[in-house]
């Protein structure tokens, strides 16, 4: 691909559940290798935005482009191929409850690679170790804590070393140390493997630590208020809402 071409482009996107518009006229692009953060007040439509980007909900209006190719107007087969390029971590983990943690991480590998059983197991255990869960491979999701389930969700999302990782609030519910480790992991994945990261989070510490740019969605005006590097937004944004958000509610 030619450089300079953004990896993901969102053009004039309007998101709605039936007649209830969540966000309208979103227009931005995510660059290759960027750590892109989506933030906003609870209920403003961050998860909904991710659902549009990963193919779970079709836009009411507007387009999502991957490498300049329209995602939603592609035929389903082509869309499937495009979907293979990304990994998704869901807000509630969404682990397959009938499988062990290792099997959860292995399934994408079983389906899309020709690795042997033992190789797959090895990779799965390595990915689990990356998120600090070495030795928990044979547990079932119901046997580990909520924060651990989240981390398995992260491990599963990156099982196939995708081009883009979508994380929905990866560090919510984690203790500060695990959250910090997750930040390190996110930065490391980007630096070493060049994975583009799109992350929904409210954790100001992580936002300032890892974000290249952040997008701010506003539930009142129902559209995006600002986009840019977080420190710059905090200090120079003309909009008090954004400064307030980035300063923990203080103006």
């Amino acid at each position: 691909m030619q450089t300079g071409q953004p990896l993901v482009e969102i053009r004039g996107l309007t998101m709605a559940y039936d007649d209830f518009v969540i966000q309208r006229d979103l227009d931005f692009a995510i660059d290759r290798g960027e750590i892109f953060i989506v933030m906003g007040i609870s209920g403003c439509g961050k998860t909904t935005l991710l659902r549009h980007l990963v193919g779970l909900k079709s836009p009411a209006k507007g387009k999502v482009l991957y490498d300049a190719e329209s995602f939603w107007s592609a035929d389903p087969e082509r869309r499937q191929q495009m979907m293979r390029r990304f990994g998704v971590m869901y807000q509630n983990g969404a682990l397959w409850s009938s499988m062990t943690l290792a099997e959860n991480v292995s399934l994408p590998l079983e389906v899309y690679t020709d690795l042997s059983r033992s190789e797959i197991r090895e990779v799965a255990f390595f990915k689990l170790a990356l998120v600090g869960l070495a030795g928990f491979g044979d547990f079932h999701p119901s046997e580990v804590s909520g924060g651990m389930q989240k981390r398995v969700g992260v491990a599963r999302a990156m099982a196939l070393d995708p081009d883009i990782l979508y994380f929905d609030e990866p560090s919510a519910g984690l203790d500060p140390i695990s959250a910090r480790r997750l930040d390190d992991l996110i930065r490391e994945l980007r630096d070493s493997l060049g994975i583009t990261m799109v992350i929904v989070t409210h954790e100001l510490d992580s936002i300032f630590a890892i974000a290249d740019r952040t997008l701010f969605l506003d539930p009142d005006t129902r559209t995006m208020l600002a986009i840019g590097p977080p420190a710059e937004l905090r200090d120079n944004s003309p909009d008090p809402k954004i400064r307030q958000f980035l300063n923990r509610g203080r103006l």
Partner: protein
Amino acid sequence: MPAADKIDLNRLPNGELLIRLSGRWTLAEGVPAIESVRTECEGVAPPSCVTFDTQAITDWDSALPTFLGGLLDHFARRGIDTDRSGLREGVRRLLDLAAAVPETGIEVEPAGGSWVTRFGLAAIRRGKSAAESIGFLGEIAIALLRLAAGRAQFRASDFTLAVQQCGAEAVGIVTLVSFLVGLILAFIGAIQLQQFGAQIFVADLVGLGMAREMGAMMTAIIMAGRTGASFAAQLGTMTVNEEIDALKTLGISPTEFLVLPRLLALMLMMPLLCLYADVMGIVGGAVVGVGMLDLGLVSYFDETRSALSFADFGAGLIKAVVYGSLVAVSGCLRGMQCGRSASAVGAATTSAVVTSIVLIVIASGIINVIDHILG
């Protein structure tokens, strides 16, 4: 203390309303209705301003701000000024917090509406649901084609687990029910046939009844309540947990991965269970024949054997396969259509059982008519 004693309304000469509150304001005492104050303001001359005096309150918890919040809302709507300086600091801060985020959200249409509206909405929902069901059948057809081409993706362990759940684990209840059904059939037949001295034909009645009809039907109804419901609950919970979404974004078809193994397992196990139920039913009949009608065990089974042909069992087995697929498809369909809440899972389960049983009875009718026409 009755509510009226805790609230004291004073009209001041300058037209203001002074609300004096006293006593205990705790949830254990209840939250007084704001009606009494409201009627005071509806009067000829609404107060120009409302002030508060809360010095005499001895004890309070969230009952107090709840009451005051309702009251202040009411005054604000009627355009009456309020002066909050008489409220305690803590109460004032709580009220401010509660008012910090203005009420927003979806203007949800009231659930009621005229009956025409409700009728129309229900019809639209039905239409949507029917279209979804047809789409789901199409997806299953595609999944079966991919299976035939050897390209379907599902885990063998899911299949064996489903086989275990709808096979081995169902044997106990199938045994009990089919044995009793055979017994009941024999009993009903015995009373009639004894009058003509034709007791031995009880064996024919039970054999044919079980093999052609009741074996498959009873097994199917047991499976609808047992396995169909559990399919719906499993898939419904997976929908709630976003597990289905996780499969979709991975490019795995949930129909292939989750529905296919369950459908195949039930289609495979239903005929086996049905055969087993036939045999148990015949045994049940024999108990009545031998115990009540004094028929010999050997002659009972001889009569049964001469009455039954393979075609009779065949008819029952075909029905079993059809019923099995109906149960599996309705269970999985309702599970996949499930909404995103725990109560939706309950509704999906109920609906799966109802759908299966209705479909089983309809299918039974259709198959019997076809059978009759073909001779």
